[in-house]
């Protein structure tokens, strides 16, 4: 339950320095709960919100486990959250590497960082730090230099709390924890889940006025999920939770959902509940307040104001926000750093790398016959390289540039000086007669080099035939 969820994980949050902590700003106590929930005092650490969930296919943005959130609900604080992250600076630990005695402190010469770093070398609490900006600085007493540490990552962070750990070496402050706070309000691509494993991704923040509304109460749902999420997964529990929570909220009481509670027998050996079916207990709770027995409601389209053809199943369901958020996961690259050996784009989100276009992707494009696209992806956008090949000996490694003596080039007004013609010579043939240029992936040249290191010579035979 709590593993992937954002919640209220600690009461003493203000003074804690957990490495990384996902925190939900305004959690609620679930209306439908089990006996164990109360027994373990889970109310002290709630993990979700009782969202009004409507089950209908609306706009198409709720297909395939996507869900539509009500924009106004989000603006009122639904599923708002933070990530707390702590960075620890231990100067005693650092001393083991360079034996230099260090202290926190800012530079007296360079005052440009003074709006970010206080006179003690630590950041101001409450200050927003942008990526690449310094927030803490350390003074090295041996070299007499001050080195600031900059914020990593690609999003700004707010200094939430700074704590100083026990001053081990006499009176000098040697260990500091800086806690950063990053806002995580729901955006398209964030993941949410009910307690029945009905997880989904927010696909749209839909305007409140365009959401369907109940004719009787005027309520608009906080969240819309698609009815197709139910038949194959058979999560009847979620539907029952919705009805139970609706009844509970109408009657102003929490509902018990302890499993096997019906099988508990009293002293006479009878079941403690009268009815066979749970629905028979919940239905009358709804009808007593003028609602439909099965939790359905007549709704009007928010866009047109006309009645929707079907009655809509709507009710509160305890929804949790999961810690998988797009802002931590998105990966995008146009051009960027390349691997020095292969000259191909590097991998990894942190390093600003690309997503691998692998064999299966290649096969797929190949099957479509999209040859130019394939060439673009695998060659032009990757390690495109123009190699000089000696057509006489077939070598791509034995070629080298000849540096021309600087010639006095005539400057033509406004134009950049013309580039001196490249002269390439093959060391093996001692001539530049057979030099040709061939476009190839750079990794091919790397292959030739590696083979050469194993005493294998690779020769190319050039021809004009296609």
């Amino acid at each position, binding site marked *: 339950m709590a593993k992937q969820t954002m919640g209220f994980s600690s009461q003493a949050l203000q003074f804690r320095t957990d490495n990384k902590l996902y925190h939900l700003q305004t959690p609620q106590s679930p209306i439908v709960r089990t006996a164990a929930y109360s027994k373990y005092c889970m109310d002290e650490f709630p993990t979700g919100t009782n969202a009004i969930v409507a089950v209908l296919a609306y706009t198409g943005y709720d297909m395939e486990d996507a869900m539509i959130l009500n924009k*106004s609900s989000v603006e009122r604080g639904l599923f708002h959250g933070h990530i707390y992250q702590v960075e620890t600076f231990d100067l005693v630990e650092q001393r083991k590497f360079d034996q230099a005695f260090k202290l926190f402190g800012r530079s007296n010469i360079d005052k440009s960082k003074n709006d970010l770093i206080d006179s003690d070398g630590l950041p101001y609490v409450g200050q927003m730090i942008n990526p690449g900006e310094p927030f803490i600085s350390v003074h090295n007493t041996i070299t007499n230099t001050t080195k600031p540490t900059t914020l990593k990552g690609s999003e700004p962070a707010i200094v939430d709390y700074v704590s100083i750990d026990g001053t081990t070496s006499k009176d000098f402050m040697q260990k500091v924890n800086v806690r950063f706070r990053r806002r995580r309000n729901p955006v398209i691509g964030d993941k949410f889940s009910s307690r029945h494993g009905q997880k989904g991704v927010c696909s749209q923040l839909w305007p*409140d006025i365009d959401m369907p509304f*109940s004719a009787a109460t005027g309520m608009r749902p906080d969240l819309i999920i698609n009815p197709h999420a139910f038949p194959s997964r058979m999560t009847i529990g979620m539907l029952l939770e919705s009805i139970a929570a609706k009844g509970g909220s109408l009657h102003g009481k929490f509902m018990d959902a302890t499993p096997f509670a019906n099988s508990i027998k009293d002293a006479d050996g009878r079941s403690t509940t009268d009815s066979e079916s749970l629905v028979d207990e919940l239905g009358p709770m709804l009808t007593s307040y*003028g609602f439909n027995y099965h939790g359905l409601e007549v709704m009007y389209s928010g866009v047109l*104001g006309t009645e929707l053809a079907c009655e809509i199943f709507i009710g509160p369901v305890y929804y949790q926000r999961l810690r998988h958020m797009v802002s931590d996961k998105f990966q995008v690259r146009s051009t960027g750093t390349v691997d020095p050996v292969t000259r191909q784009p590097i991998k990894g989100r942190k390093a600003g790398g690309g997503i691998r276009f692998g064999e299966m992707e290649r096969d797929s494009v190949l099957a479509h016959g999209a040859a130019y696209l394939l060439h673009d992806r695998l060659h032009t956008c990757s390690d495109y390289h123009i190699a000089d090949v000696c057509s006489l000996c077939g070598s791509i490694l034995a070629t080298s540039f000849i540096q021309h003596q600087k010639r006095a080039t005539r400057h033509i007004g406004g134009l950049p000086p013309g580039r001196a013609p490249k002269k390439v010579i093959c060391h093996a043939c001692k001539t530049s007669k057979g030099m040709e240029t061939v476009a190839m992936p750079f990794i091919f040249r790397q292959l030739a080099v590696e083979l050469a290191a194993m005493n294998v010579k690779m020769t190319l035979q050039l021809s004009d035939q296609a």
Partner: protein
Amino acid sequence: MEGISYQRFPKVKIREMKDDYLKFELRETDASMANALRRVMLAEVPTLAIDLVEIEVNSTVLNDEFIAHRLGLIPLTSDRAMSMRFSRDCDACDGDGQCEFCSVEFTLNVRCTSDHTLDVTSTDLRSSDPTICCPVDVAARATAALDPNSAYDPSEQRGIIIVKLRRGQELRLRAIARKGIGKDHAKWSPAATVTFMYEPDIHINEDLMETLTLEEKRSWVESSPTKVFDIDPNTQQVVVVDPEAYTYDDEVIKKAEAMGKPGLVDINAKEDSFIFTVESTGAIKASQLVINAIEILRQKLDAVRLSLDTEECDEQFGELGAHLRGSAV
């Protein structure tokens, strides 16, 4: 303009009116008009809300953004909002909230010195001009103080809580309230709930009804979750007691079919009359909310009408503009 006019003259009849609640009938118009009115009330009637917060000291348990968000959601009295300017098109200032035409400044300065928990509430917000704008509960208290007969009990009202303080904690900030609409952010929405229903037209087939026994009648009447029908204790006839309680849930029709008496009752929605329920947040009176909504709807329609014969029409309305222009010629 040639052609038939589709102009209609909708009628409004107010049924119940309180400061924050209004129930009225809207007749002789269609669903598009009713829904337009609902949408404008929810998202386009302007109010004031705190939009800019400068925090000087915050040693409370809540972080700055959290407090700023909470301040934003406090409903402020916005009777003057219609005549105020949006700070983005205010010429007198550059939208920094220093001018009386577009903004109101608030300050909050609370420090807890006792061992008891101190609640910081909306009453601690000091408005630069309380006559224009202040938190709604403060305004309610002020009006109640003037009226000795009011049922308002100030001891029950503790204000809208912002944060709780313990000894030594302090919150000091400056906030600027600006004009805005609910479409931009829900905090500017003056309506808590706006809903309408089609007025039902219920006809009981008396002949068929008489074929039922009293027991059957009773079970049929009870099949509706809302109390629409009842049995007259004297004549033992089924009568419609509250047609508007009907929610179009078809329960009674299904029940009649299950009893083998289809056509026992015939219920239709009147296409041209609506019953509106409007609940206000308190920022403006519910009645004023409806009036403002109509005014804004008219302004929007004027904007369409005035731009009809201009070329900009195409840019603004795309195909719709071309269509409108085409029909105008």
